[in-house]
């Protein structure tokens, strides 16, 4: 199986988990208007990615991700991997990979999760139940006295049950595959509220956001929000389709070779472009010539720049504290980041329909001349799966030739393509519906002409 096919299968698998188990919970929270969640959850429960700033992926080796194989050999199930976002109010949203999520809940103490649990929409047991939904032996579960899988997984987390007593043995490899293929589509969301201890957040606090005071240090006020909001941009999906051969197709009833017609369909999907801004603050201690400064309180390590009366950079000294000849200030620079995500084709459906004029013509004009003339198959539909391939500019190209379509009704055919993209890490799947060109299938008519 090709890598991209595996990726798509993984995406579909996780999307199903999301739709069935996670999305209703998201919907409930969005509906309740919970402030922390509401700022990036739409009323329908979907995630408003435009309100999240992507901070990148964090990965690190982790002892609690190890498994032991015969011979006392420890091997890793993978690195602990997280994708991280920041919300408009400065909360950090973490999406662990499926394998990371799974191992975290199996080892809540070792992973540090138990000490600093984030806000979650679902409990750990519900998330484990969602991850393992297709791998649970229901009879085994019932034999142990459980009806609700989440109850069993709660017992697993508390160390009262052995997860492997009900889970299919191929689950472990599948969850690793899910992590490789599906990346970080939502199986569970961890939200770390602004002000949490930075050590609690996988990957720490994002730079520049100063979410929390350093224990024992000087509290740092959050930087003013000066940067533009993140934005997502994309161009519309394009599609073209035409009859490519033969030049003059005729209805198959009149063609001994039953040639029919060939139609070619092409779709181009422009990428999704995420632009976000990193607020990078610079703390400055500067000479105040008028003597009306507020001083530069220590520690000196707080200052990125110290500028003396000549405009030169210098070092911070204690005499600058409580000294009106010195003034502390903070400048915020917005660093623009642009990320491009190819959006693949999920499916495309081509409809080929005989025009209403041609239908009327067959039924009203043609029927008297050709007794029994009727519509045989005026409507055609073909559905194809993506994903297509990425070309220049991260545009996804997809094409399909449909050979020898056996048109039996003459007239003008109108084509339309509709479909759906796969969506990206930062955008939902995009539907599209586009009209395509028309073409004619001819009828050979015999006219008797009097011989000269």
């Amino acid at each position, binding site marked *: 199986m090709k890598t991209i096919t595996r990726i798509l299968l993984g995406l579909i698998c996780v999307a199903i988990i999301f739709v069935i188990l996670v999305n209703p919970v998201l919907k409930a929270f969005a509906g309740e208007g919970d402030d922390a969640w509401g700022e990036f959850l739409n009323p329908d429960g979907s995630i408003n990615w435009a309100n999240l700033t992507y901070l990148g992926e964090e990965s690190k080796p982790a002892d609690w991700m190890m498994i032991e194989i*015969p*011979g006392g050999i420890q*091997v*890793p199930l*993978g690195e602990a991997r997280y994708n991280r976002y920041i919300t408009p109010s400065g909360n950090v949203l973490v999406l662990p990979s499926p394998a990371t999520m799974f191992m975290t809940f199996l080892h809540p103490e070792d992973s540090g999760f138990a000490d600093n649990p984030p806000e979650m929409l679902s409990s750990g047991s519900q998330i484990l139940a969602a991850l393992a939904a297709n791998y649970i032996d229901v009879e085994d579960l019932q034999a142990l006295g459980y009806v609700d899988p989440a109850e069993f997984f709660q017992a697993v987390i508390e160390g009262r049950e052995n997860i492997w007593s009900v889970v*299919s043995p*191929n689950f472990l*490899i599948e969850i*690793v*595959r899910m992590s490789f293929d599906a990346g970080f589509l939502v199986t569970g969301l961890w939200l770390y509220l602004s002000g949490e201890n930075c050590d609690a957040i996988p990957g720490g606090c994002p730079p520049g956001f100063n979410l929390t005071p350093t224990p024992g240090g000087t509290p740092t006020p959050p930087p003013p929000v000066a940067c533009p909001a993140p934005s997502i941009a994309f161009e519309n999906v394009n599609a073209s389709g035409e009859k490519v051969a033969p030049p003059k197709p005729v209805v198959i009833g009149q063609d001994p070779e039953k040639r029919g017609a060939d139609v070619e369909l092409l779709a181009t999907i422009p990428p999704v472009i995420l632009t976000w801004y990193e607020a990078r603050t610079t703390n400055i201690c500067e000479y105040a010539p008028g003597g009306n400064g507020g001083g530069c309180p220590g520690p000196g390590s707080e200052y990125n720049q110290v500028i003396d009366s000549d405009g030169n950079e210098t070092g911070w000294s204690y005499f600058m504290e409580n000294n009106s000849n010195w003034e502390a200030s903070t400048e915020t620079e917005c660093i623009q980041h642009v990320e491009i995500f190819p959006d693949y084709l999920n499916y495309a459906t081509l409809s080929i329909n005989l025009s209403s004029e041609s239908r009327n013509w067959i039924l009203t004009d043609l029927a008297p001349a050709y007794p029994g003339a009727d519509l045989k198959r005026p409507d055609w539909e073909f559905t194809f799966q993506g994903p297509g391939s990425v070309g220049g500019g991260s545009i996804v190209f997809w094409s399909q030739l449909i050979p020898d379509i056996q048109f039996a009704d003459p007239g003008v055919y109108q084509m339309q393509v509709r479909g759906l993209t796969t969506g990206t890490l930062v955008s939902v799947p995009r539907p599209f519906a586009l009209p395509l060109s028309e073409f004619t299938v001819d009828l050979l008519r015999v006219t008797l002409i009097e011989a000269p």
Partner: protein
Amino acid sequence: MEIYFSRQRVLIAVIAILVVAVATLVILKISGQSLAQAVGFDSGSGAALAGVETFYSVDYHDGQDVWAARLCALSTEPACNFYQNTVAPFLWPDFEASQTLVTTEANEAVMLAEEIASTRGNAPMQVWQVAVNLSTPWPQGDGQTSFPAYVLVVREESGWKFERFLLEEELAKYIGGKQ
């Protein structure tokens, strides 16, 4: 009865034999390559024994890629990805540092359970217990050279393939537990 061979006929016969021999070698080589790329075993025990022997046999001269390729040749695809991308990069620095040379014998395969992988088109799965004997211990291991291994194999279109070793926590289900 006397049989006469002309020199020309003898020459033609020799050339024909040579052509057939060369063609046979080429075909064997090609089929051997394709077998190496996707081996499926007729029996679950064959996949379990071969998987165990391939996994534990290490020659540091071969390098990580060769070891992983050998394992992938008899493993399911998701298992291959796991060994190739996660396990091999973790183990091989130690193999190279300690110049590991280990040969392995696996035998006494005993089937413990048969199950169905519903997420893989109801593919049959089997759990096998195998006795493992290493020529020398692995550098990452606990020093043992003889130990039992519990192996999951899955049947695909081309036959039975190695998937993974069961964890200790999983064994209760198969040993004295539900079978």
